[in-house]
């Protein structure tokens, strides 16, 4: 009995050890690259005017926080959230309607397919002319990029709901709305969360693309502005902040996923 326990302990320790080693290497790679980058710039092996350098990026970030970094981050954040929420909401409504009216879904299928494969950035000029250059255009851009994918993903999920589950509900006399709310929708929570993840990423892509095109504020604006005036420090700083921002909102969705799927398998 004692021997088997120690065997288990060895196993658990090895597992823990492995986890630490992986984390250590992950952090090491990042630290190594940053140090290498800094050193190369310090001794003049690379031109920090073109590549920037970590110490200057940090300085820029500190400087930005004293003036308006928070404002830019706030703008991008607001646009992303509005685009994301609208994308999910409209996506969900459209997908539900298309599930409800099968013929309708069949009629619109080729349109969805073409719209899905069209690079939505191409619509940029049209969007600007139609809704004006400003936050509205950026949100519409985010929506254009994320909406169709959401609709298709959700509709596919709805359509592939286990037929037997639907039949079971129907044998109890379930009406169509009951089938939807009691079976089809809840059995697609996983699909919904997957499409939240995709939607979030795409909304951010849409917002940055939109900011590239029209904005006066936001991280996308900072990146374009930095590039135009050849301030690579500003560009790099903005990209890093953007990466951290994206990681944080992705993490939030993961936490939400964990809560929503608590009781499933």
């Amino acid at each position: 009995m004692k021997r088997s326990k120690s065997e288990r302990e060895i196993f658990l320790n090895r597992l823990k050890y492995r986890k630490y080693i992986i984390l250590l290497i992950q952090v090491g790679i990042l630290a190594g690259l940053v140090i290498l980058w800094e050193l190369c710039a310090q001794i003049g092996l690379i031109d920090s005017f073109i590549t920037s350098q970590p110490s200057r990026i940090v300085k820029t970030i500190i400087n930005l926080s004293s003036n308006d970094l928070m404002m830019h981050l706030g703008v991008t954040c607001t646009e992303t959230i509005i685009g994301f929420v609208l994308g999910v909401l409209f996506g969900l409504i459209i997908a539900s309607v298309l599930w409800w009216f099968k013929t309708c879904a069949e009629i619109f299928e080729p349109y969805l397919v073409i719209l899905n494969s069209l690079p939505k950035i191409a619509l940029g000029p049209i969007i600007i002319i139609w809704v004006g250059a400003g936050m509205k255009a950026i949100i519409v851009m985010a929506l254009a990029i994320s909406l169709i994918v959401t609709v298709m993903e959700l509709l596919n999920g709805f359509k592939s709901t286990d037929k037997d589950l639907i039949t079971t509900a129907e044998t109890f006399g379930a009406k169509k709305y009951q089938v939807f709310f009691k079976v089809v929708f809840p059995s697609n929570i996983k699909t919904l969360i997957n499409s939240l993840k995709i939607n979030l990423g795409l909304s951010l892509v849409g917002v940055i693309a939109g900011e590239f095109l029209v904005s006066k504020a936001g991280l996308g604006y900072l990146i374009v502005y930095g590039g135009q005036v050849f301030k690579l420090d500003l560009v790099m700083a903005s990209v890093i902040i953007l990466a951290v921002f994206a990681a944080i909102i992705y993490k939030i969705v993961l936490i939400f996923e964990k809560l929503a799927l608590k009781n499933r398998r």
Partner: protein
Amino acid sequence: MDILEIKNITMNYQDINSEVTAIDNISLNVKQGEFIVVIGPSGCGKSTLLSIICGILKPSSGEIYIDGVKTTGITPKIGYMLQSDNLLEWRSIYKNILLGLEIQGRINEETIDYANKLLKTYGLYDFRNSYPSQLSGGMRQRAALIRTLVTNPEILLLDEAFSALDYQTRLSVTDDVYSIIKKENKTTVMVTHDIPEGISMADRVVVLSKRPAVIQSIHEIQFEDITDRTPLLCRKSPKFSSYFDTLWRELDMNETV
């Protein structure tokens, strides 16, 4: 009067290439409390027949009468169990069992009491807050049966209800379900491709021919040597193998002709 009358049911399936007659003029009467087993070659239209009785499928012609009243579509007088238990993974066992009542808008003190009583009687009360994934295959099947019984149907339709289970579980679940059905005094029509399972449960076995399905023969199954009949006891009776031989030969003849 018979509780269930199947009158001249014919079913044609239409698709783009052809018209297939799945069922050809089947008539059958079922008495209150009777256990009918329908067997036949695979793809002969056994499940189609159940779907028609249940009302989710409209026959090309013919009528179904329950208690002498002609049915038009789905009715709460019939409970239907499909091949797998079809429990909803995101609902607790208790919530799963109330699904039918919820859909029919019949959740009240009386029906909840009945649900609790069934859960207690059939040993699932302690698991009412568990989720389906935490239960064994046999318990899930029992939960599915209770979900059907809770709406208090007069007739139960079982469509290969045990074929998703492994053999061991299947034997005990068959016993389990049979005793519940008998205790609740329900009329049952069960479709299966498993001859022994059919014999072990049936009062009458109906043999369907291959497509287009007609009733080829009906066999009364009686075990005089057994007093308190259970499927497992039936399997041990000497009469069991003679029933098996008869039915097997009949199905076999059916397949080769």
